[in-house]
């Protein structure tokens, strides 16, 4: 789960990482009120989960109330690469002497934590990496050893952080590492990490992605889930506890298992169609789950046909078939279904589907994934 900048900064603050005084605002008046508390000059920053806000005009400096009004009015509602700005973060403007970059992620290949640190911050780190790979220090950290202040300082020296900033950066790295590990982040990134003329180190931005598997030990994350930007279909799917991702195509997809669902998308694409979604209903595939899945797909106006791809392992074919028949009765479907049912007791399952008295125009069965995909794509044309 990706956090907005303001949430990331609030999260950082819990781990004693210094961030600017500020607050979030959804209206111009709120922005003015926050600015007064943060003290002028302030920066008004669009809260969207996409890069390039500054270039798009989503970050503006304001020296007085009139300027805050102007900028907040312009930025709220602004469309930045398809993301509509619903909130702005207003914070006290910082004086900047230097800009650095710091992040922690899990390096899956090495199965260890990875620190990336650079004295060249404030720009896209990919650009730095492309121009001068040696400008980024990469340090692997064994998760059971953790990061000591000493190691953090050594990495800072190696990254050519100037002497005057070394202690501050090393201290900040340890705090950011604690946030990353104790805070169950997939990513904790500060860009830019700034040195103020007064000598303090400070997080001017916050990019935090949380590992939702750790939600059980972070009740405080509930508020972040509430602001997640989901489209209507994704919202409905979440309420039904389905693994759903909305896409732009015309063939609605239901499969059991993430791999099979991905594979179904691929096969639809291979035979010239486009998938409307990714939907994994998991191993169960009973009538309730199937009904919920069909309701979500049915709520997508773009869907012209529905491809159900089930491989019966533990769930036997006849149970899956019964679930589908029941679900088709419950949901008033706008698009025809093509089903491919395979695996344990698939024959019995197909017989149940064939004998259910559902007209062919509404539900047809195909023996293989490829044939089912072809039929569904044909119907979606």
């Amino acid at each position, binding site marked *: 789960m990706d956090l907005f900048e303001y949430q990331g900064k609030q999260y950082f603050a819990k781990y004693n990482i210094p961030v600017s005084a500020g607050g979030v605002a959804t209206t111009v008046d709120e922005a003015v009120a926050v600015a007064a508390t943060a003290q002028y000059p302030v920066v008004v920053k669009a809260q969207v989960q996409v890069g390039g806000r500054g270039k798009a005009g989503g970050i503006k400096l304001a020296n007085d109330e009139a300027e805050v009004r102007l900028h907040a009015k312009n930025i709220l509602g602004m469309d930045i690469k398809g993301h509509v700005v619903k909130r702005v973060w207003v914070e006290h403007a910082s004086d900047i002497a230097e800009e650095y970059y710091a992040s922690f992620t*899990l390096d*899956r*290949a090495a*199965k*260890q*934590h990875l620190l990336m640190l650079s004295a060249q911050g404030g720009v896209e780190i*990919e650009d730095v990496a492309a121009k001068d790979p040696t400008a980024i220090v990469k340090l692997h950290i*064994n*998760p*059971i050893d953790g990061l000591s202040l000493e190691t953090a300082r050594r990495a800072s020296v190696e990254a050519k952080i100037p002497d005057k900033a070394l202690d501050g950066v090393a201290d900040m790295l340890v705090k950011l590492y604690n946030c990353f*590990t104790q805070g*169950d982040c*997939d990513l904790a990134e500060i860009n830019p990490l700034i040195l103020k003329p007064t000598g303090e180190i400070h997080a001017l931005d916050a990019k935090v992605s949380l*590992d939702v*598997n*750790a939600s*059980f*030990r972070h009740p405080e994350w509930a508020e972040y889930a509430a602001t997640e930007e989901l489209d209507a279909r994704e919202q409905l799917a979440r309420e039904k506890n389905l*693994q759903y*991702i909305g*896409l732009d195509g015309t063939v609605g997809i239901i*499969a*059991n*298992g*993430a*791999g*099979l*669902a*991905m*594979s179904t*998308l*691929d*096969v*639809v*694409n*291979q035979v010239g169609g486009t*998938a409307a979604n*990714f939907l*994994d209903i998991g*191993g169960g595939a009973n009538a309730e789950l199937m009904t919920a899945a069909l309701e979500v797909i049915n709520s997508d106006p773009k869907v012209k046909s529905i491809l159900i791809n089930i*491989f019966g*392992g*533990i769930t036997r074919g006849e149970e899956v078939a019964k679930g589908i028949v029941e679900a088709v009765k419950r949901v008033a479907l706008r698009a025809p279904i093509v089903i491919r049912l*395979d*695996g*344990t007791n698939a024959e019995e399952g197909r017989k149940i589907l064939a004998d259910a008295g559902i007209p062919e125009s509404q539900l047809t069965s195909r023996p*293989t*994934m*490829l044939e089912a995909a072809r039929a569904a794509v044909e119907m979606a044309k």
Partner: protein
Amino acid sequence: MAIFVDQNTKVIVQGLTGGQGRFHGLRNKAYGTQVVGGVTPGKAGQDVEGIPVFDSVADAVAATGANASFIAVPPKAAPAAILEAARAGIGFVVCITEGVPAQDEARVFATLQRDYPATRLLGPNCPGIISPGKCNIGITAGEIAQLPSASGPNVGIVSRSGTLTYQALYELKQQGIGVSTCVGIGGDPVPGTSFVDCLAQFQADPETHAIIMIGEIGGSAEEEAAEFITNHVTKPMSAYIAGVTAPAGKKMGHAGAIVSGGKGTAQGKMDALRAAGVQIGLNPTEAGILMAEIVRTIRS
């Protein structure tokens, strides 16, 4: 022969008295697996349909001589359960638990590596392992696995995705091809056992004559496998990579399945494997058909 588990493997189920543990533990036993005990703290002396339950893994090992463990406990309890099995000297641990936090997985992996190098972890979030006719640990429906033939050729399967593991087993069964061992390594960010671990075992296993590999988007496990194949695998292989059409930045169900920063794409993985001499199917069925051709070539 088979890899990791065979007819001599003695399995205990951690969480045998829970819903999942009971269901799958009993199914594994019914398949013919030696399920010799279960572990649930506080329930020593009870039994689940004749399988004795112990308070700790150490007790279970002392009483039964178990050398493998099947962990079916909730995500909160899984890291401690894995380490308990390792401490008790279990050599092969299968953890099917879905939803273990990545930070916990990383810590568990590092701890096993440092303190318990003799313990191999499969998973978490994996379907398990089956050596058909010998041993089935996990959630695979045993009846979809074709028994290996004494004269061969037999195929080893390694897969990151659960249902696609079954799909691969099924494709081979349709083709009448025997399976030596089928390993589901799971789709999480820090799997205990990697493609490379399995490929090395299959390469060394005399009963395995060819290998089918099912990968998916995200991470670099398939690229690492490709490098290993180039240098160490001489047995013929076919593969399928799921997620060609997955958009960047969206997690496709598995915690590990995400294309980010242009890395971990299906195309990149297919190219790497192709360069290593692996035949690539564009869907699971195609990978199965390619494998059937490989097997026909070996037979003739």
